[in-house]
């Protein structure tokens, strides 16, 4: 049983290498290996359903053992990783066909999957960090395959990732200096015995690394660029899975290494939540609201979705940081849901880009008639994302709100709500500008995406319904996970939550069945009425003016310009500009610094003299500067 974890982890890596080598023979060999091994990993995951396998030692280093483990919490994330990766590979086959360096692409894709799987399976900090870095640079190579602009975006991504990872590195090294063992259990034991200052340092440094990956404001600036510039099939992987690794890390940090009680002891608790968690909650809430507002004002479809990801990951972090059973369950469930619907939306827009070649929303429109399947996918995606019943986003958002209400964190709740309402705005903008409205003349021959690209859309659409109506399916694992973390597991039913879990009970099945019955009734009424005839899109009201195909009679540029007038004052300052200013300052400073290498022999010789003097002097005063 222990060995099987190693097998699971090795699957994507082996698949990647085989796909790479197979690609040299024939492209279908490559595809077969890629699909086969990603599917294999996904299937292997189910052998670990609801099990806790600990401590498969796979190596030793510096006196610490390297351990793999799996528990229900990591299972959820491993499930997301393998599932979405599989779909991404399916989607890739048609989408990136004909590009250069495809063997390398699939290699990287499977390596990213393997690295993320490694993160979820890691049982000690060295393994965790190793796979974390591996994930960063392998995904970097995926991102920069998206064209010219993506290189800058990828550069930003890798720099920020590396900064985050190094921050985490310092935290890990601090622990290693004390514990000399980095197995999760020892780490939590050490932290429970350490001084508050040490724990806070650890928390902050480790947290920064996770926040960068989870794109919590103000460390989010890499995300909009990277997600929008990456190749279409990579964006779902980034948005759906990669940023979830941050959420997983936070869960492990908050409740694996530390615990609510322990964090509570670090600072006086006048608040409903321990201070550190409370700060995290506020950061999450701020990213919810600001990212939502930014998403509303975007013109680029993928950029819009990228900002939406920042906002939605805000909910995840908010839920996880809450510390209550319901909140954590909500956060984890939202992580799962977000992986489903955001990947779905990115797949859809990927298909649209594949067919039309643009992602500028003001150039698109009216694709519903040409790409109905994509439209249905987008519809499910936006309904799920906006948190409207009966799809899955509703349940998790509801849980987070109820948890906030339970803890009386009202201001956070207000922000979460506003973010959610704002989501209607940008999501409507997304679906309208792409699928509704006027079909531009140049896209009148656009076809639906090929079957392999439809498949992920169908599967994920179905999942939004499944998890929306039967949230108990997910709660089953999440409750196990909470038990594993030592938190009271959440009470749930298959269709919702009984009285006492939240402020009030919830039965999703009732809402959806009433909705469906009402729909059937109204549809019956509608069908009894005189039949309608279909008219062309140009037969539309234009105050008597005749609309011709040459006329662009569509509203899609500057969709919420009037709203922009209201909120623009907030965005005078941006974190991105600040970072760029820092980078520039560092660069200028560095440029001055390197002028010591003047290239003049006499300068260099004088350095020697100066140095001897200094060394002699320092030795004279005892050789001790400190």
């Amino acid at each position, binding site marked *: 049983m222990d060995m099987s974890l190693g097998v699971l982890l090795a699957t994507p890596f082996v698949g990647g290498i085989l796909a790479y080598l197979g690609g040299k023979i024939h492209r279908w060999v490559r595809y077969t290996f890629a699909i086969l091994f990603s599917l294999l990993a996904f299937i292997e995951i189910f052998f670990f359903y609801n099990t806790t396998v600990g401590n498969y030692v796979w190596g030793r*280093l510096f006196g610490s053992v390297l351990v793999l483990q799996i528990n229900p919490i990591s299972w959820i994330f491993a499930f997301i990783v393998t599932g979405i990766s599989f779909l991404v590979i399916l989607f890739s086959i048609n989408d990136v066909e004909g590009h250069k360096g495809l063997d390398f692409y699939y290699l990287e894709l499977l390596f990213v999957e393997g690295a993320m799987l490694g993160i979820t399976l890691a049982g000690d900090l060295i393994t965790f960090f*190793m796979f974390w870095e591996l994930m960063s640079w392998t995904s970097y190579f995926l991102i920069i395959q998206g064209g010219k602009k993506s290189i800058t975006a990828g550069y930003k991504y890798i720099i920020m990732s*590396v900064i985050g990872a190094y921050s985490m590195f310092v935290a890990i090294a601090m622990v290693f200096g004390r514990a000399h063992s980095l197995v999760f259990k020892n780490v939590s034991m050490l932290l429970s015995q350490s001084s508050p200052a*040490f724990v806070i340092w650890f928390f902050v440094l480790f947290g920064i690394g996770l926040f960068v990956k989870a794109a919590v404001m103000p460390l989010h600036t890499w995300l909009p660029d990277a997600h929008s510039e990456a190749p279409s099939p990579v964006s779902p992987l980034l948005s759906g899975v990669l940023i979830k690794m941050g959420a997983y890390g936070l869960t492990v940090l908050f409740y694996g290494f530390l615990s609510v009680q322990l964090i509570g002891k670090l600072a006086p608790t006048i608040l409903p939540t321990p201070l550190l968690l409370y700060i995290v909650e506020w950061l999450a809430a701020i990213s919810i609201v600001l990212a939502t507002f930014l998403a509303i004002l975007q013109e680029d479809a993928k950029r819009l979705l990228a900002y939406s990801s920042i906002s939605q990951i805000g909910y995840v972090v908010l839920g996880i940081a809450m510390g209550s059973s319901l909140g954590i369950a909500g956060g984890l469930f939202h992580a799962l849901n977000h992986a489903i619907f955001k990947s779905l939306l990115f797949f859809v827009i990927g298909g649209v880009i594949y067919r039309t070649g643009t992602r500028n929303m003001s150039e698109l429109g009216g694709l519903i008639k040409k790409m109905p399947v994509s439209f249905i996918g987008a519809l499910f995606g936006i309904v799920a994302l906006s948190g409207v019943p009966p799809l899955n986003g509703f349940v998790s958002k509801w849980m987070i709100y109820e948890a906030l209400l339970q803890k009386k964190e009202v201001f956070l709740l207000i922000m979460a709500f506003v973010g959610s309402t704002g989501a209607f705005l940008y999501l409507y903008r997304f679906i309208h500008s792409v699928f509704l409205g006027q079909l531009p003349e140049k896209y009148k021959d656009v076809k639906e995406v090929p079957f392999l690209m439809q498949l992920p859309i169908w599967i994920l659409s179905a999942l939004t319904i499944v998890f929306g109506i039967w949230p108990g399916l997910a709660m089953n694992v999440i409750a196990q996970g909470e038990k594993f973390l030592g938190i009271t597991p959440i009470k749930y039913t298959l269709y919702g939550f009984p009285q006492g879990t939240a402020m009030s009970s919830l039965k999703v099945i009732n809402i959806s069945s009433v909705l469906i019955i009402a729909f059937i009734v109204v549809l019956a009424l509608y069908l009894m009425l005189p039949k309608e005839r279909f008219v062309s899109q140009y037969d539309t009201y234009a105050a008597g003016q005749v609309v011709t195909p040459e006329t662009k009679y569509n509203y899609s540029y500057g969709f919420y310009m009037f709203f922009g007038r209201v909120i623009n004052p907030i965005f005078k300052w941006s974190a991105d500009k600040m970072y760029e200013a820092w980078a520039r300052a560092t*660069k200028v400073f560095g440029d001055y610094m390197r002028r010591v290498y003047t290239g003049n*022999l006499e300068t260099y010789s004088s350095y020697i003299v100066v*140095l001897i003097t200094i060394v*002699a002097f320092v030795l004279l005063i005892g*050789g001790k500067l400190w």
Partner: protein
Amino acid sequence: MVNIANPILLIAIPLLFAFLIAVLAPWLKKGVKYIPVIAFGLNLLVVFELIPDVLDNGIVIATTAGIKPPFAINVAVDRLSLFLVLIATLLGFLVSIYNLVYIKEEPAEKFHILFTLLVTGITWMIVTGDLFNMFVAFEVTSISAFGLVGFHRDKDAAEAGFKYLVMGSIGASLLLIGVVMLYAATGTLNMADIAEKIMRFTFKQKLLPYAFIFTGLGIEGALFPLNAWLPDAHPAAPSSVSSILSGIMTTAAIYGIIRVTVTIFNYYQVILFLILFGLLTLMFGETAAFFQKDIKRMLAYSTIGQTGLFFYAFSLGSINGMQGAFLQMMNHSLAKATLFLVVGGIIFSVGSRNIDDFAGIGRKMKLSAFLFAIAAFSLMGLPPFFGFWSKLKIIFATLERVNVYTIAFVVIVLFMSLIEAAYFFRVMQVMFFKEAKEEKEVREAPAWMLIPAITLVVIILVLSFYPTPVINFAHKAAADLVGRSVYINSVLGGL
């Protein structure tokens, strides 16, 4: 039966062959170029023979003239030396294979002589147990390096060579002064003996000689204010020489400093201010590298940075720190040598040293680009490559004690790693993802130039996925070094 596990052979064989080249050149003509390969092949054999001995006993000592150590020049190979000798010989061997194709310019035989002498000098410097011998080895290394840097005899090479020469000879003089001062104080030149005798001295009495030796070796070892020759000299030299200079020569000089500081002066826990040198070297090297357009110059600056990194790790003064330093030395030697060799091949094909001209290399010279990438990853310390483990160790060693200083050190080290990652990623972007402006006919480098790089990359990969033996070995080496008695006692009382 002659026991070939004798460290003296390490010096003797290549010296002999170096003179053989000079002698045989008129007859062998082109065939001369195979002599260094044979020489270092033999050396490699010797080193492999030495390995089990050193692993068993911790140290192997050889003496000359049959007199016991304090009075005779002796050669001692302990774990640390073995570590470096192995790398030096390996690099010497591989690079001399590389030279078979790479060196076309005349006078080739002089190049081969100098090259052989260079590697010999480095090996000598590492294995010697005698301070004055170290000076001589230092000079052998330096002079051959001066010659090799100026080998192209063009504008840049001459200027760089001249700068290097002036700096180097000042350094040599300083080193000699230091050595002589020690001799005046103790009356012996044997390292172990000096170490024994110098124990009676007060801290301040030891100062001046140490300052001179440190500065002298520091010039060759590329410590911060003394390293200004390096970014000129390394790029000016032929790529194969650059890989030796960057890969092992600075490391050997740093080895000298380590040996002097720890074994002779026993200063390693006292003079923590050496950390400053490490950090400054790191900072200036990496920052300057970030701005370079010329790839060899960038790599040269990166060498300065790496040297700073492992010197910093060494000057932490703990066993773990030294372990990290040794690992990083190894990583740097292998990776940087690979980089220079690969870049040499690329420049050979592209005909330019400007990074921007490398656009599209990733497609046309797949193997070279791949080797470059692996070596660069290892140098940057990306997992799962070997550099990751060494960097991990360095950071762990720094944070054994958590205080404001160590945190600040770690921040600097990591920030500089970030800059390093930034410029290497930039190069790789250009190589792999930028389209070439004009379609030039670029062919893969000749096989003989790739084989050494491939070998090195294979070694890196093996170490990456199976680092445990090396890590343990480095730990033992560090422990031996810090527990000075092993060295001193076995040299003085041994045999």
